[in-house]
């Protein structure tokens, strides 16, 4: 029995769910655990009341308050929400259990106050926990900590922020061995693993499942006619007029887009074409100022908005009661994300979550069918945890050294307890240390590199400059340098990447924060703007919007494609796409289930080889590299490679004499292992991975707002460091990490082997269409490309010279 919950629930007129009772009981007994429950069913209270109960059961007398609970969430907005809920309970029940926020927004003054006079509970983020570890006397500060709660653990698990959590936990457990750990997670494919990683291997905590089945209604918005609908494109604006009646028919609608620029475009188009939405429509994304976002969130709560165009910034947390409809623009790229977004509407028990799917190009229509299938079959992605992320470890070593310092032997033991560094060897650990102590393996004659210093057995950072620089760069999210967009009067609108602003001239107009703005001037890291009424403007594109379709959604899509040959019982989406499949047949071929279609087309770009194995983007990435390697052995060439869910494309200037016999060899499973290992050019993929690694490890320093000249002298992009390491320290741990990540996340050999085996049984159909086909077009227009070349840089340049002189 939980007396606090009982009173509270009675006063609110609520009835406790089973899972809440179970959680309260488990916490009472001092267990750790993972709670799996959907949003909107009181999962916060399930854990919170358990903690309160435990606190007052243990509390003897009125002594000085100490930090009792840390509640970690992935988002600041979510932190605020939890803070509000927890605070209301303390106030409503007149408890002396004090709750405070500790995020990037917390002022220096309140931070100092928290240090001297800590509250019982702090609501915070993984980065802020590390910042606390980076302060002096952090060990004493955490000494009496009883609970740590990791909210939305599924969101953190598959990212390096999850590694930050693992490391922080290993430290806190060492400080306080009786620490109880609770996680809260939405449904994912690997809940058990998620629990084990969070609690630790030896901790037999509980997995509490809510088992609440939520009803989800999915509807695909179809264009009036398929012929006028683009084969490729990413804006989806064509269906704008179809979305408007949906907005009208509901009380409050969330319109999710995949990127921030897409959100700006949709907002702009809605307001321009339907001026009656002025004041009723808002925009919300991660680059907007807190002020704007908080205003939007409050207005949503109060039901003052008809619709909000948003990105993943509204994926999590906060429930907006008035929201009764969700629109997803473009492929959601993953089933879990789609479900999560759908769940943003109708979150009260018993209500139906309604989601409309708006495809942005013809082939994407089929995903409507796939999404329904995935929802019906309860397909949910796993979140794959990062392992051996030495970049995060190096950051963490610095964090502790900036704080109280650390003993290397003890720390090695703690770190080895985490899932991420289970397999780390002492040598590897020493190598990380060496980088921080003398900048690498070797020392030169007059070198005065110093970061870590050994002071009486504890490694510490003594330079204040280094300490400050490190505190400013704690975290595992790497972004470009951001500039702050402001009005003349100083009002702050949000931040845009420096690279976008640098392309604009004074007087040019761009769309941001749902407004049309004219660039007046740039000062340091500030962009000064004024409102503009000019017709034309550009929309900033932000980095990081590129994510590919998850393997699980990919599987559902492949299931849908199997049905295109069915004569009856076709879904609405597939029936609608019939003319497109006929066009594909007319121009080329429509492959049946045991056929592999290969198209060879010449355009002004060169010779295109399109292959459609329907194996998912991940496999296609590797497969295309293998095929490029095998072709390159016949005749040296350079390929530009694009992939999507259905197939891949190799473009090259070099022409090949293709026939079915040759294709058999290209797709043969024999010598696959050798070809993957010797053939695939992972250099560029690794270089791209290295961008984040260098940022997290602390090689790339962004500088602070209004950075001085001296810090500018430290700026360089990660590409430079990649080259330096390759030239002077090719076996470097961070460099190896970049390559490992490519093999772990991009080129999975097992999956590739299976795919090649499957194709081996297929009949290969070679077609030479005159023009691009409906299948080819979306791949053709992929702007993100890999490159494969077995010509060296010099001979590629020689060819370039030839081309230029001929023209």
């Amino acid at each position: 029995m939980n007396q606090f919950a009982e009173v509270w629930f009675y006063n609110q007129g609520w009835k406790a769910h089973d899972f809440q009772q179970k959680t309260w009981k488990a916490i009472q007994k001092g267990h750790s655990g993972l709670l799996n429950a959907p949003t909107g069913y009181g999962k916060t209270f399930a854990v919170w009341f358990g903690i309160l109960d435990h606190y007052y059961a243990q509390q003897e007398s009125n002594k000085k308050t100490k930090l009792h609970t840390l509640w970690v969430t992935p988002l600041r907005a979510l932190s605020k929400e939890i803070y509000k809920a927890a605070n209301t309970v303390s106030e409503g029940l007149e408890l002396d259990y004090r709750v405070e926020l500790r995020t990037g927004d917390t002022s220096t003054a309140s931070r100092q106050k928290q240090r001297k006079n800590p509250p019982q509970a702090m609501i915070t983020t993984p980065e802020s926990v590390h910042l606390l570890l980076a302060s002096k006397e952090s060990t004493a500060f955490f000494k009496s900590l009883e609970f740590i709660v990791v909210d939305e653990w599924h969101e953190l698990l598959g990212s390096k922020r999850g590694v930050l959590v693992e490391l922080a936990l290993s430290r806190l457990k060492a400080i306080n061995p009786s620490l109880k750990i609770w996680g809260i997670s939405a449904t994912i494919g690997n809940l058990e693993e998620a629990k084990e990683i969070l609690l630790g291997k030896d901790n037999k905590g509980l997995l509490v499942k809510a088992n609440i089945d939520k009803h989800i209604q999915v509807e695909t918005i179809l264009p009036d006619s398929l012929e006028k609908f683009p084969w490729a494109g990413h804006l989806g604006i064509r269906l704008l007029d179809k979305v408007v009646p949906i907005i009208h028919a509901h009380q409050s609608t969330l319109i999710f887009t995949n990127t921030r620029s897409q959100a700006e475009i949709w907002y702009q188009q809605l307001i321009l074409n339907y001026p009656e939405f002025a004041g009723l429509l808002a925009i919300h994304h991660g680059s907007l100022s807190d002020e704007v976002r908080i205003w939007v969130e409050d207005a949503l709560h109060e039901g003052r908005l008809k619709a909000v165009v948003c990105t993943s910034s509204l994926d999590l947390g906060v429930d907006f009661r008035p929201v009764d409809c969700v629109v997803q623009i473009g492929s959601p790229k993953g089933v879990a994300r789609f479900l999560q977004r759908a769940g943003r509407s109708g979150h009260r028990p018993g209500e139906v979550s309604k989601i409309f799917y708006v495809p942005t190009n013809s082939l994407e229509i089929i995903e409507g069918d796939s999404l329904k299938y995935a929802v019906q079959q309860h397909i949910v992605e796993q979140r794959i945890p990062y392992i051996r992320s030495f970049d995060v470890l190096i950051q963490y070593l610095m964090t502790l050294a900036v704080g109280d310092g650390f003993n290397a032997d003890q720390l090695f033991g703690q770190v080895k307890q985490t899932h991420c560094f289970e397999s780390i060897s002492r040598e590897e650990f020493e190598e990380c240390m060496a980088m921080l102590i003398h900048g690498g393996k070797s020392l030169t004659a007059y070198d005065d590199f110093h970061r870590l210093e050994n002071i009486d057995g504890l490694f510490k950072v003594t330079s204040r400059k280094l300490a400050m620089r490190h505190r400013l760069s704690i975290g595992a999210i790497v972004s470009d340098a951001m500039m702050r967009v402001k009005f003349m009067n100083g009002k702050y609108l949000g931040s845009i990447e420096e690279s976008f602003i640098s392309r604009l001239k004074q007087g040019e107009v761009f769309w941001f924060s749902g407004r049309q703005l004219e660039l007046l001037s740039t000062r340091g890291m500030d962009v000064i703007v004024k409102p503009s009424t000019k017709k034309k403007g550009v929309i900033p594109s932000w980095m990081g919007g590129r994510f590919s379709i998850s393997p699980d959604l990919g599987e559902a899509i492949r299931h849908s494609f199997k049905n295109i040959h069915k004569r009856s019982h076709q879904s609405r989406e597939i029936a609608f796409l019939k003319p497109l499949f006929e066009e594909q047949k007319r121009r080329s071929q429509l492959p049946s289930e045991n056929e592999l279609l290969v198209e060879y087309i010449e355009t002004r770009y060169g010779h295109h080889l399109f292959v459609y194995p329907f194996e998912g983007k991940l496999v296609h990435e590797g497969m295309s590299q293998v095929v490029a390697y095998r072709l390159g052995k016949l005749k040296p060439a350079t390929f530009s490679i694009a992939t999507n869910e259905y197939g891949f494309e190799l473009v090259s200037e070099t022409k090949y004499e293709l026939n079915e016999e040759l294709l058999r060899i290209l797709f043969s499973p024999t010598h696959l292992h050798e070809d993957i290992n010797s053939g695939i050019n992972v250099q560029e993929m690794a270089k791209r991975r290295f961008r984040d690694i260098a940022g997290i490890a602390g090689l790339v320093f962004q500088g602070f707002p209004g950075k001085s000249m001296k810090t500018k002298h430290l700026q360089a992009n990660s590409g430079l460091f990649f080259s330096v390491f390759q030239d002077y320290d090719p076996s470097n741990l961070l460099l190896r990490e970049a390559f490992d990540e490519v093999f772990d996340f991009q080129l999975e050999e097992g999956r590739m082997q299976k795919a090649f085996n499957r194709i081996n049984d297929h009949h290969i159909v070679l077609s030479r269409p005159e023009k691009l086909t409906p299948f080819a077009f979306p791949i053709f227009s992929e702007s993100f490309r890999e490159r494969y070349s077995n010509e060296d840089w010099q001979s590629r340049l020689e060819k370039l010279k030839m081309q230029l002189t001929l023209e």
Partner: protein
Amino acid sequence: MAKRIVLNGLECFLLPQKVLYIPQYGLLVVSDWHLGKLTHFRKEGLFIPPVQIEEEIGRMELLLDELPVQRVVLLGDLFHSEWNEDWMQFTLFTQRYPRISFLLTKGNHDILANDHWLEAKINVVPQYLLTEGLVFSHEPLPDLPSYMVNVVGHVHPGCLLKVRGRQSFRLPCFHLAERILTLPAYGKWTGVQVLPRTEGARFFPVINDEVVEI
């Protein structure tokens, strides 16, 4: 292979070593070397392996040994930041060429103390002028008479070439527009900034051992 261009009647060669050579004056112009950059990074606690700069100096020595050079104009950003040991090596290098005069038109990165320039026998000047109306400076000078040509560095110009087979190349280049000739950065560890293809601008990318106009 070098590219020959004529500026105000003066014959100039754009060399694939990313330098400018003017035979009539035996003048070699070198921009944005950014010496000492990586050592500076290490000093500031960025853990990169120690890097030798002999190779970069060696490349310059090759040029000086092959061409009849009387004067080297260093067009700014010669040294990346505060003093470090790399400067000693550079000093030894200039001492090996007592007959060549070294001039520096200071760039925004050149914050070394005067003694250090002297030590390397470098004459620091605000700009350098040839009678043909060529004026050398780190950044473009304001209000120049219209007959003058300003030779500058600073931006590390590059261009983006897109060719068949969906290939693209980002290459360092010489850039000539509105009587301003911008030199590519000489230093090995410098980036390039792709300049837009504006009306009337001429691009001379460095492709292997050749400078080509596009």
